[in-house]
């Protein structure tokens, strides 16, 4: 066991090996590792972003759905209102029409009745005069007794 030329050779080999590692091995390997780390970091960030965007889109879709549901409800409500209005209006106009019809029928009835009363009155007057003239055997001045006959007829 002694110290010899091997020491010097070992120092030279060591220096060369360190130089080789420093210039040809470490930088490209480290670059690759760091580049990959960067890529992975970017990938993770992109995944996070995608997640966020998905969340936002989901929220947006939910909002749109909720709005649509509300609108549908409003429309249905409006339609019901409208239907109620129409029915109400129809009911009102129908009852008005009915009243009108009843009133006009009543008028007709009144007219007919008064006409019939008038003709009856006239017939009664004539019959009374004819009967009286037959009884008295003389001609009664119809015009002189008109007032009496009218009173009589009105009593009928």
């Amino acid at each position: 066991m002694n110290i010899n030329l091997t020491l010097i050779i070992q120092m030279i080999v060591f220096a060369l090996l360190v130089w080789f590692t420093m210039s040809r091995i470490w930088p490209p390997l480290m670059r690759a590792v760091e580049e990959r780390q960067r890529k992975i970091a970017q990938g993770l960030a992109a995944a996070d972003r995608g997640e966020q965007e998905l969340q936002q889109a989901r929220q947006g879709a939910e909002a749109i759905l909720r709005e649509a549901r509300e609108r549908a409800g409003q429309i249905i409500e409006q339609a019901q209102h409208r239907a109620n209005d129409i029915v109400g209006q129809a009911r009102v106009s129908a009852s008005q029409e009915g009243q009108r019809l009843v009133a006009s029928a009543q008028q007709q009835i009144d007219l007919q009745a008064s006409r019939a009363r008038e003709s009856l009155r006239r017939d009664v007057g004539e019959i009374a005069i004819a009967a009286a003239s037959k009884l008295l055997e003389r001609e009664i001045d119809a015009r002189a007794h008109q007032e009496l006959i009218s009173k009589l007829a009105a009593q009928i």
Partner: protein
Amino acid sequence: MSTMLPSLYAAARPSLTEYITHHITFLTNERPVGIIDFSVVNFDSVFFSIALAVLFAGMFFTAARRATTGVPGKFQGFIELILGFVDSQVKDTFQGTSRLIAPLALTIFCWVFLFNFMDLLPVDLLPDVARSIGLGHLKDVPSTDLNIVFGLSLTVFALIIFYSIRMKGLGGFIAEFTLHPFASKNLLLQALLVPVNLLLESVMFFARPISLALRLYGNLYAGEMVFVLIALLTLKSGYHALASAGGWAMIVLQFVLGLAWTGFDLVIGLLQAFIFMMLTVVYLSQAYEHH
């Protein structure tokens, strides 16, 4: 080197001393003389050091060339796992910016781990292969060679000095040695404290590369030695162990111990590679710091 294979020498059985000596002798160009001899080269350590450097660089370079920013394959995932581990460790410890420190840490961690992993190969496998092609000795765990571990730690030490001076200036670097940890407003007292500080700080400073290297060396050398000792169980008997119950007991014991120590040594190897890397990062981040 684990002891999954009993050491089976065809010819005469080596003695225990011969066997152990064989396993701690490097393949050299000449017999080393003394503690320091720069005319000697440990061919085995240099070969495995470079081979494992090529393995590491080849794997990571392939991954770097094919690196995709899309979905990574299993191989790229494995490479990036190591890369991410080292990067997070460095970022936790070192706050400044440096193009060097993280790649340096990656190199140290992987390379030293591969050194230590060689310890898990069967203890006689590669030496026997080497013997078959005519090489007398082969130590296949580079981190059990002082030259290799000091080659690493002294390079790191040079970087510590370089960055200290670059970040703090030569004056700041010297001030760190002389005005710290004992400081005084009184100039005379300060002048007396300077040698004390210098002594303390120098010991601390120079202990760094030594402890860095010896910690790794000691752990792996011990691990290697344990494998060699486990291999000794059937060394004497060799194939004759198959003929007796006692021999079989030894084989089973060797197998169980070897298996257990392999698992343990794997953890040691990983831990020591990690410690070497972390201490390097800590020392360098201290060099970057301003006081």
